[in-house]
């Protein structure tokens, strides 16, 4: 795990500015939520850390190393998507062990480690299953195990709970939240769901229009919003937020 710093990151696509001078630090072992409406730049922020977008200006640092121009495959980041993106041509165990295979870990060790992770995530014994035969919640756990297997510098979660039903979501929030805390994972959790961010994250950054409006603990943000936008966005009353995709 590592401390990840964004230093005045700016990202432009032609005439549009997706990130307009974003700076914050995710400390070692901390999970930071990035919260905001669609189009606020939160996904671009995640992709800049992963390396899929190179900032137009500014720098991305892992601990003290500048990784701004390092390609994603050399950054050691874990990535969890909303739609899982499991490799259907491999078994569950092969999915989880894929990153270790890329690092040249030998087969027996890979398999053992995959089994341990699956056990820890409550889906032990699924090693030889075809991922397409699993339920949505099970697939999401495989996706999480796959990202954790490489012991990433930072775990990036891109709306991982969206699309799951409410009951499962609540259960996974608690489980995954506890797990991330227990493993001392450094994480960035992108979501448009303020409740999820409050439950899962140590600190929350509220973004709007390519800028970070406020960053702080959930309590600070909820009790002392610095702007009307933040106040409105973190209020737990959905009808007040017509521009959020519900």
């Amino acid at each position: 795990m590592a401390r990840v710093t964004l230093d005045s990151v700016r990202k432009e696509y032609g005439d549009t500015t997706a990130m307009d001078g974003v700076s914050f630090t995710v400390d070692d072992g901390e999970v930071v939520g990035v919260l905001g409406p669609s189009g606020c730049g939160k996904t671009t922020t995640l992709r800049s850390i992963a390396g899929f977008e190179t900032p137009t200006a500014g720098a991305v640092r892992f601990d003290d190393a500048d990784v701004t121009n390092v390609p994603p495959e050399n950054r050691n980041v874990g990535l969890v998507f909303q739609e899982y993106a499991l490799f259907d041509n491999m078994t569950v165990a092969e999915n989880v062990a894929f990153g270790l295979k890329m690092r040249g870990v030998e087969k027996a060790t890979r398999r053992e480690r995959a089994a341990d992770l699956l056990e820890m995530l409550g889906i032990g014994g699924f090693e030889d299953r075809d991922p397409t035969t699993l339920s949505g919640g099970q697939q999401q756990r495989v996706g999480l195990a796959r990202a954790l297997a490489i012991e990433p510098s930072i775990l990036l979660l891109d709306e991982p709970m969206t699309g799951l039903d409410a009951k499962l979501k609540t259960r996974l929030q608690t489980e995954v939240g506890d797990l991330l805390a227990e493993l001392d994972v450094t994480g960035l959790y992108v979501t448009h769901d303020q409740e999820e961010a409050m439950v899962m994250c140590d600190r929350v950054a509220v973004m709007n229009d390519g800028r970070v409006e406020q960053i702080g603990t959930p309590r600070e943000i909820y009790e002392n919003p610095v702007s009307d936008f933040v106040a409105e966005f973190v209020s737990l009353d959905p009808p007040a937020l017509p521009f959020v995709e519900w």
Partner: protein
Amino acid sequence: MVAVSRRVGRPVVTALLLATVAFLIGPIVLTVIASFASSWTGVLPSGFVTLQNWREVLGLAETFGSQRSMGWDPLVTLPIGGGTTVMVPAELAFSVGLALGGVLINLVVGVPIAYAVSRYDFRGREWVNAVSILPLVPGVILGVAFLRAYPELSGTSVGLIVGYSLLKAPFMVMAVQSEFESMPLRRLEESARSLGASWPRTFLTVIVPNASSGIISGLIICWALAAAEFNFSYIVWAKGTQPLALFLQRHISNSSFTKAAAAVSMFFCIIAAVTLLLQQLGRRGFETRGH
């Protein structure tokens, strides 16, 4: 009027469909039946059941020897394992090989460009897409162009293989593209790369295996179309073993009706057999994965 549309519309459209199917498939069935008849001069073929037409077309019958001696190609002997061999007309073996060569080129050129168009956004993407899925020129024109540009090469196996691959490439690209479009390409690629796989490795070990069913169906389509390619072959072919389509045309134009029927039926069998074979390979590949 309202009642008429509701009452007759559907039966009429269904009848039209069935009539078209009969028009398309009827002669195929009739051809296969006629290939087992000794003559066809009345309303229906007669003199069942004889294998003589098939034996002659496949070059197994004596009478064929005289035709062979008139410049037709000899048989080739293919080992089929276990020490047994099978004799097949040289044209057949030749075309199978040519089409396989063409398909290999299609694999190498078609899958990457289909991925580029499906996965990435770039200026000129629409044009690249159009160029890759629209046939550039028909076989006749390409044949003339080959004769002019590569006079030495055009009639050889290499010339035929390269020509086939260009003519059939759009079908490969379309088949693979439709598979790619049903896959979450960006997320698959990004997941694999975040796990440490280089981009080429991601493409070869994650993207391509995940798209295998589309790739295999593209290969089947291209193989069948290349094996049957006539127009280009007719223009560029000069001497030596004939491609299968020219062999068929020779029978259609010169042989008795029932023998031509046998030749055409043999072609139907090849198309059907190869389709089954490749599907089988695809399924086995699917079942054995992960062990």
